């Protein structure tokens, strides 16, 4: 059953999701999902691929609407927000996309400066200073003139991180920040997530399935499977869990409660041609 959800002081909760149900057509993604993110902490959201981790982020940031349940961010109901309110909320968050999602026709400098130019009338000298500071923080001040196409995957993600923090958000959301990175870049990103959270006093949500990396930085973690939270707690607690599904996921076993085989008709029958295709 879902692990005990911490019951912190109300004003300490940044994100509160209760009894969430979300389906795309016939396919139910979430059914009865509960989760909360507390201020100043790094919260990991883990789960096998295809459990809707990214969809959960879309629901939290108001890009999709749930069919049922409560999604509250900073105490306000997200699905009920107007476009203006959504934009006001999003200005307080930064999001790091898996692909980086840098604007391909702008160079690194302009990409990081983009939110400033869109939302503020700061003089160029100040924009420059802010951009340089953030690029220095991710170690890419030297790449200032490069175009996104010239960056490696890890670099693009760091530039995107600089862009995500340039407006000094209170909440940073990382969507699969470790996917497809070499060990060094991975180490850099892990360090940056930790440092950002400490130095800037942020709240961070990290969606990933890289158990080892998350274990070193996450304070809280949730394991999603089949539309629900199947376990929660600190990464160490999850490691010690004797729930089968948790053990399968944490240890990376091929078969278990999450079956190796995608549901299929009977193998023998299909080979013998008794099933179509």
């Amino acid at each position, binding site marked *: 059953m879902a692990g005990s959800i911490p019951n912190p002081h109300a004003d300490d909760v940044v994100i509160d999701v209760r009894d969430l149900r979300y389906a795309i057509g016939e396919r139910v993604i979430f059914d009865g999902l509960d989760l909360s993110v507390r201020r100043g902490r790094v919260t990991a959201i883990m789960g096998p691929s295809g459990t809707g981790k990214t969809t959960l982020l879309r629901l939290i940031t108001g890009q999709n609407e749930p069919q049922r349940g409560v999604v509250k961010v900073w105490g306000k109901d997200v699905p009920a927000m107007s476009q203006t309110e959504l934009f006001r909320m999003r200005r307080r*968050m930064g999001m790091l996309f898996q*692909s980086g*999602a840098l*604007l391909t026709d702008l160079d690194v400098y302009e990409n990081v400066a983009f939110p400033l130019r869109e939302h503020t009338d700061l003089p160029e000298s100040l924009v420059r200073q802010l951009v340089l500071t953030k690029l220095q923080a991710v170690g890419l001040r030297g790449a200032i003139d490069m175009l996104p196409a010239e960056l490696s995957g890890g670099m693009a993600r760091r530039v995107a991180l600089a862009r995500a923090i340039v407006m000094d958000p209170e909440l940073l959301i990382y969507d699969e920040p470790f996917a497809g990175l070499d060990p060094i870049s991975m180490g850099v990103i892990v360090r940056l997530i930790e440092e950002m959270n400490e130095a800037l006093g942020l709240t961070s949500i990290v969606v990933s399935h890289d158990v080892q990396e998350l274990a070193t930085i996450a304070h809280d973690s949730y394991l999603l499977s089949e539309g629900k939270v199947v376990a929660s707690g600190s990464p160490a607690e999850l490691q010690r869990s004797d729930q089968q599904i948790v053990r399968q996921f944490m240890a990376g076993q091929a078969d278990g409660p999450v079956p190796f085989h995608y549901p299929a008709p009977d193998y023998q029958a299909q080979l013998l041609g008794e099933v179509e295709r």
Partner: protein
Amino acid sequence: MSALRGVIDGPAQAVRRIGAVTLFLLQVLAQIPAALRRPGFIVAQIYNAGGRSLIIIMLSGLFVGMVLGLQGFDLLQRFGSEDALGVAAALGLLKELGPVVTALLFAGRAGTALTSEIGLMRATDQLTAMQMMAVDPVRRIVAPRFLGGLIAVPLLTAIFNIVGVFGAQLIGVSLMGVDSGAFWSQMQSAVEIDDVTEGVIKSIVFGAACSLVAVYEGYHAQPTAAGVGLATTRTVVTSSVLILFLDYILTAAFL
């Protein structure tokens, strides 16, 4: 039953699509005041869509004008009225060929570029990223491109017409020996301001239609390689048919 469904589905889908495009147009129109506050982006798009189509427009204009010169001369001399070649060429270009051919070329040259650009932005999460940065992509990306196209097409049409008249003159006067004075003076006295207005209105309507189709298809493209390709094709097909359809409607309205 399924046959009936097939009969109904086609038109139903067409109606749904027209509705979707109209809603998108309203969405874009609502963002135009905000987009106008940053004219730099619009100017960049006029250059992108218009400036870069200049060569193809001028070249096509020249050839269309030259063909008009040849065909017009051949036709008019049968009635012994080759002096009217200037009028024929000017009216043909101003009222029909200028706006229509320019818009068709624009759809092929600039419309496809717009669609694939916006479609790829969608496919690479750039539009979602903007939304997450509290920036409305319709205001920041779509509206300036729509306005850029809307402004570029009438300007391109004017250039097309000028080059076209020059081409007709080149063939008619220099090659076929029509009297230069008759060519220009007949044109001057016969072409009314209404003829010019008709062409201008047509080119504005075509510009709006082409740009709208291009940005709509790009913005709603399936975020895959095949999806963007398909959207680009649809831009050309839809724009072309729409231009010719609107041309008929407008011509009928002006007569």
